């Protein structure tokens, strides 16, 4: 679907209806978005890096700070709103997407963000997450995935690898983990991406694309918990291994990674797998450059994006695609809900009280009535 086919041609960006700073107003800085509350995550927590990146990134949107709302659930990452000087709500476990749905639907002039974790979003709040994605409510969901329960001190999470030994699984977990990207694509999310806490440049670029997307944007952020799951993402962070571990996804580009060749491009790449219908890793030298899969994040069909998501290790993470898997346009729930109200009111939203009163009198005095004198 192209932009012009959308029923709301004026609204194409996620922040189109949010008031911006006027040219004569002072530009905002990260400091403007920093609240007076002391940040209380553990030393070395990946959340610090994401907070810094968000505080550094938000001023660039040029939005009025009072029109930004951060909503979170419960968990370490859900303390996030307290540290940002915007409107915010630290709500209850798993429910942030539903609260954000109410905010986004009630007010088109707000930029709505959800901060959540793997337990909050995928375990207790799994239902709300998939339904937000299905409805395509205009909000950006930052899913901090550390593959462990931190705030409750170290139980396995719905993204922990099978066999993981934790406080609640002394003989190893027998749970099969979720792949958050596969789940979001299955729920027909319109913007699904993955990035890494420690790669500020990539994180910021994905956040910018997510904010610009009109609809629900899901950004999975690999985030290291130094206390209960330290090193979970070492393979994709270690300079010696990351070239083979990270499969970078860039729209319109052949997908290549691995040891860099003289050409400056990776030695490995992705090709379609004729046998499974999916995607597999191949040596470029074996298959030739022309056989490489060119990433199309804008394809209306999520099949290829799903196939890419399956290249993520479900056990210890030695390989994972990173980037924007899917970015397509679909009318949002909140825009359509508001459009129905606009249609019903006949555009008379400059209603004065007297008129609303007349219409109320007509409503309650309607139906089959009789008069007693």
């Amino acid at each position, binding site marked *: 679907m192209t932009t012009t086919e959308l029923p709301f041609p004026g609204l194409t960006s996620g922040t189109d209806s949010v008031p911006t700073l006027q040219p004569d107003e002072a530009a905002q800085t990260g400091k403007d978005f920093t*609240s007076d*509350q002391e940040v209380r995550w553990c030393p070395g927590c990946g959340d610090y890096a994401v907070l810094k990146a968000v505080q550094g990134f938000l001023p660039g949107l040029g939005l*009025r*700070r*009072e*029109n*930004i*709302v951060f*909503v*979170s659930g419960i968990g370490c990452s859900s303390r996030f*709103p*307290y540290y*940002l*000087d*915007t*409107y*915010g*709500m*630290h*709500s*209850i*476990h798993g*429910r942030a997407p*539903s*609260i*954000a*749905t*109410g*905010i*986004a*639907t*009630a*007010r088109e*002039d*707000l930029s709505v963000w959800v901060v959540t974790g793997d337990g909050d979003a995928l375990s207790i709040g799994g*239902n*709300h997450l998939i*339904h937000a994605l299905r409805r395509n409510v205009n909000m950006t969901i930052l899913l901090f995935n550390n593959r462990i329960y931190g705030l409750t001190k170290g139980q396995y999470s719905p993204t922990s690898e099978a066999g993981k030994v934790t406080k609640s699984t002394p003989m190893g977990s027998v749970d099969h983990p979720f792949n958050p990207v596969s789940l979001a694509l299955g729920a027909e999310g319109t913007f699904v991406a993955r990035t890494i806490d420690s790669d500020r440049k990539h994180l910021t670029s994905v956040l910018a694309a997510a904010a610009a997307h009109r609809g629900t944007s899901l950004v999975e952020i690999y985030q290291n918990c130094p206390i209960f799951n330290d090193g979970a993402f070492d393979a994709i962070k270690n300079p010696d291994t990351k070239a083979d571990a990270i499969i970078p996804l860039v729209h319109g580009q052949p997908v290549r990674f691995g040891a860099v060749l003289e050409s400056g491009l990776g030695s490995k790449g992705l090709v379609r797998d004729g046998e499974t219908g999916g995607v597999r890793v191949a040596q470029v030298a074996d298959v030739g450059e022309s056989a490489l899969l060119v990433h199309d994040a804008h394809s209306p069909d999520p099949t290829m994006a799903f196939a890419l998501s399956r290249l993520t290790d479900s056990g210890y993470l030695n390989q994972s695609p990173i980037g924007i898997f899917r970015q397509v346009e679909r009318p949002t729930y909140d825009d359509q*809900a508001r459009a129905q*109200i606009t249609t019903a*009111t*006949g555009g008379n*939203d400059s209603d004065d*009280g007297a008129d*609303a*009163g007349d*219409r*109320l*009198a007509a*409503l*309650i*005095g*309607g*139906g*089959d*009535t*009789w*008069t*007693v*004198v």
Partner: protein
Amino acid sequence: MTKQVKQLDRVIIRFAGDSGDGMQLTGDRFTQESAAFGNDLSTLPNFPAEIRAPQGTLPGVSSFQVHFADHDILTPGDAPDVLVAMNPAALRANLGDLPKGATVIVDTHDFSGRNLSKAGYTTSPLDDGSLDEYALHQVDLTGMTVAAVKEFGLSRKDAARAKNMFALGLLSWMYGRPTEATVDFLTRRFAKVSEIRDANITAFQSGWNFGETTEAFAVSYEIKPAPMSPGTYRNITGNLALSYGLVAGGVQSGLPVFLGSYPITPASDILHELSKHKAFGVTTFQAEDEIAGVGAAIGASFAGTLGVTTTSGPGLALKSEAIGLAVMTELPLVVIDVQRGGPSTGLPTKTEQADLLQAMFGRNGESPVPIVAPQSPGDCFDAALEAIRIAVTYRTPVLLLSDGMLANGSEPWRVPELSELPSIDPAFATGPNHAVDDGDDDFWPYLRNEETLARPWAIPGTAGLEHRIGGLEKGDGHGNISYDPANHDFMVRTRAAKVQRIAESLPPLEVDDPTGDAKVLVLGWGSTYGPIGAGVRRVRKAGYRVAQTHLRHLNPFPKDLGEVLARYDKVLVPEMNLGQLSLLLRAEYLVDAVGYNHVRGLPLKAAELAEAIGELVAQAEGVDVDLTPAPQEALS
């Protein structure tokens, strides 16, 4: 043929048939006709939870009872004077409720072998003498309907489906109901299929004509209009009145209404109704579950609209944690629980008022929530407005406890003038409210209004008032996270005090004590208002003294409740639960409240209640109480 016309002061009719027979529609039309005629009335729909239980069986029986009179009445009536039974199962399921001598009109069409056995009859009750004590009318409603609509070329099955309209026509003749509105209704309802429209109208008119011409019905009845105070009236169900109250609350507060809801019996009609009123800026969000419904409503309230969620008992259980969040964040929120039989899934289509203690205490921590309850279908309108007034003024979730009887029952309702409605001021925060040490102004989200103890409602988009709220304990005033022991103790007490402060805004209790010296007080809440009032009238009619009062507010109680209770020697508390209000009254006032409790899924019966009141009067006054002298004249 000139037929005799008899005057009656009131009649109770019950239409009963299979779930697919259209009994609810039939009853509703008869009710509308009676309302238009000017009778006072009260209705009791009663239907199974199954959409279409096996045809012709007892579990599949659906009924609609309407009580109409030439005077002010309070209940749908204890026992029908007339039963219309469309099949053997409907007869068998309802006969036990009929007094001897009652009129029974039976569609004879299905009184044959298999249909009789499906209803559990071994012999036909029409032939075996078991109905000898009733005034039995055997009419082949189905056969006559099929013959009457022959010209429209419908299949036999479709033709037979109009039999409910034939029955309605017959009863409309018997009681002199005006018919134009029903013809108009059928014309509109079946506008798209002309054969069905014409068949229904023809069946309806044929039923009327049959009554007028047949010798089987020698008498018709006249029930004069009831005197009512001047005004415009309409017949209204509780769920419709409640929906209108929510729309009105939006208009009166200037806040767009946002309903987050998940379908559940018997509350879903409120979602359906509000979804029609987008022209008032009402947004309805059908959520993925009960929790998302209340969650979205809380989000909408944070965003500066009026968050509402509607549910029934099981859904309220699911919403508990989120309501606690609204208590902690002190955001306006209206939670409507249309109570049904419990626990668990319980009796989805039957009434009960056993969620009072869940509403009062069903959350973790000290989590006070104001509770209001409507007392009649029309009163649901006022109760909704009152819930909104409290929620917005005091920045708090409010629970409104309706129930299945109010939701689906109906009564004539005087349409209020706009000038009678309360105006509600959201009073959003517009600027800083606190000077900090360096002389700058700051915004403190938990700095309270001294009179109401309400905190400011600062909505996103207001520059300079950016703030964060959440479920963690707040520091007094500034609202930042606080784990300080003394602060927590203070905040717990402050939240409780804020809810108690609502009592300052409530009018004194209205106590109905005509002689002023009654020794027994009957105190109720919710839909028992009708049966209690009817029971009290019977006792007074028999010459005894009794006082009555009814609670709109269950939390906080009105300030003078303790003093009112202390004026009486005995206090009777009738409830459709095992004594939940009694428990609260005993705890709060150390009063020896006597419970009168039934949980049958049906309204309390006025006659039985009168007996219970009589017993207490006998004890309190040391006299023998005999209520029998004039049972026929006793008003209901």
